[in-house]
């Protein structure tokens, strides 16, 4: 019998992350909230999940930085406008 369980763990982990972010929404800086609204947290999670078995931490950090910098730049540019 084949079960269709693959991906269940990922959805569960992502849902937990989202829920934690919502629970802490009151404590989050408004500017950071704007970054959150750009789904940056989900993108950071996607990197973290895809790279969870990767031992090359420098490469993982490079990917994380790219995601955060891009979202932050968008927010800063939008604020400047």
């Amino acid at each position, binding site marked *: 019998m084949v*079960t269709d*369980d693959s991906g269940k*763990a990922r959805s569960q982990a992502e849902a937990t992350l989202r829920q934690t972010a919502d629970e802490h929404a009151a404590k989050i800086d408004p500017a950071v909230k704007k970054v959150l609204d750009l789904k940056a947290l989900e993108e*950071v999670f996607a*990197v973290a999940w895809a790279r969870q078995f990767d031992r090359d931490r420098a490469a993982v*950090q490079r990917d994380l930085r790219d995601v*955060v910098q891009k979202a932050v730049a968008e927010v800063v540019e939008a604020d400047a406008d």
Partner: protein
Amino acid sequence: MLSRRQWPKWLRPMLISSLEIRNLRCFYGSHRIDLTTTDTASLIVIHGENMRGKTSIMQAIRWGLYGEVADRHGTDIPVFDPKSREQLLSHDAVSDGDFCMFVEINFTHEGEDYQVRREARADGQAESNEDFSIVPTLKRGQHVLSEATIGPTIEAILSREVSRFFLFDGEMLQDYEQLLKNPDEEALTVKTSIEKILGVPALGVFEDLDELAAVDEKRLNTTLKKRAKYGDLVDAANQLQNEIKGLRRDRAELNYELKERRDKLAEAEKAVSVMRDNEKLLLQKNELDQKVQEAETSIDEHESAVREVLREKWWLPASRAMEQRLAAIRDEIESGMEQIEANSRLRGLKESIAGKQCTQCDTTLDHHDVDRLRQKLTKLKLENYVFEPMSVLDAYRRQRLYEKFQATDAVAEVALRQHEIDRARIARGDAESKIKQLEAQMAGRARGDMKAKIERWQRLTSQVDGLEKQIGGLDTKLAEKTSDHEAKQRQLTGLPDADPKLSLQVKTYRAFSDIFNKAMETYREQARVAVGHDASDIFRQLTTEAAYAGLQINDAYGLALLDGKGQPIPGRSSGAEQIVALSLIGGLNKAAVREGPVMMDTNFARLDLDHRENVLRFLPQLGPQVIVLVHSGELPKDQELSDLGINVARRYEVIRVSETKSEIRELAS
């Protein structure tokens, strides 16, 4: 439901398509097996009696993937070891001067074809393991990956740490519970491995986010320091940052030292335990030597006593024949005496008829009495009694002669002593065979000074304790400094003169780090509970005991059996232990971040038939590809699994072709 082959590429699990083994263990020459399965037939059964090489197939896969194999005691098996002979390279290959061994595994992962090949080769005649060079190669499609990326790529596909739950040995799982009860490194490793299967480390990315925040904080501080008014605050923050760095460096060094000491402590513990085992074995051997000695003394004593008896009664070996002869003579005498008695009666009758008067009671006889006596006389004469007094006398003479050789006590004594000799010989044989077994167990084991080993173990224990205390102290200091630094850094990041982009990046990294950190704890708990539920569901499916309500999982992923009232049941049989372990494997595979092939070298023989049937029915659900290694006591070769509703993709049999060689043959599915 979509078939696995229709799933998105990233979801498609690792599946082994073939395995080729050359000159590994009992597989001399090349042996290739096709391991492809389908969505509807995911099970591969490899039959083989004990000592045929089933475990070597599992070892081949482990060696092919990770380049190392351990025996059931956790000791690494070298490619070549001419001293202990416990080696991976086939002994037949060595005899033929063939010092090349390889394993090639073809598999698919996320929809791509891979081929990993590991080859051990020595040029010329190898004398030690060091003479071998190991060359791994890994191909993704037609692309050959660099040697440096082989390990990380395989780790990312099927991590060595988690592989114990995919490529597992039932015998090792028996110790699973015990393992988790010990608060040592290995239990922690198991817990970490389990969490890795469940995807917990993915949320551990907060450490990377913190590091990225620190880099940006440094850049931010550099720009702020240019303004004199923020100089002191920046200096104070930088000072704290440097102190934190120093503390972390010290901590990392201490951690490294602690790990080293712990490894040494584990070795020392093992050495002490081996010595203790050796002492026990030696004690048993001494007792057995003593038994051999006692048996030999007993044999000598009894043999000497038998010799003493025979010196005096040299004819004893013929005594049985003489006894038979004596019995025959006695029969002869008895028969002679009966003849004498009969003759006396004949004589009496004749006299009674002639005198017409009874010779016994003097009664006068009439003609009727005389006729009756005449008839009796005729009958007696017809019985043909012959009076031969000389033969009776001769028989008496012979009886006297043979009676001289009668020695019932001596015969009994010799028989008793012979029995004792036989008994002592059996005891000696038993003891000698046990000694041989013990000597085989003791061969190659480390020997040495027990006192020195215990002292080393105590010294290391105290060093480990000391290091743990030092690390504890550093952690407290680190927490204080970190809190101070964070407060100062928050101040700096919030300054209106701070670069807005850098400031927001720092805040984002920190906020994300905080969310990931908190989410990890929640997810860790959710995943643990989910594994517990899944394992419990599987256990109920597998068990035939209505009294068991299910399983309860603890923080260390240990599982307790629950009774009908939900109370833990203390103690369990080895069969129940196996069902529990299998339930955990099932639960973990169900909750795992990624499916993979499951290979089980397990022992179903401990299970009764009903449990065995339940387990067999469950096997295909364990994963997309399940390879089981079984002997006839667990699953007879002729048992039709289709009767149980199980589709088998392929069946193989490991056959011994000589004392040291085996072959793998495909059976009809």
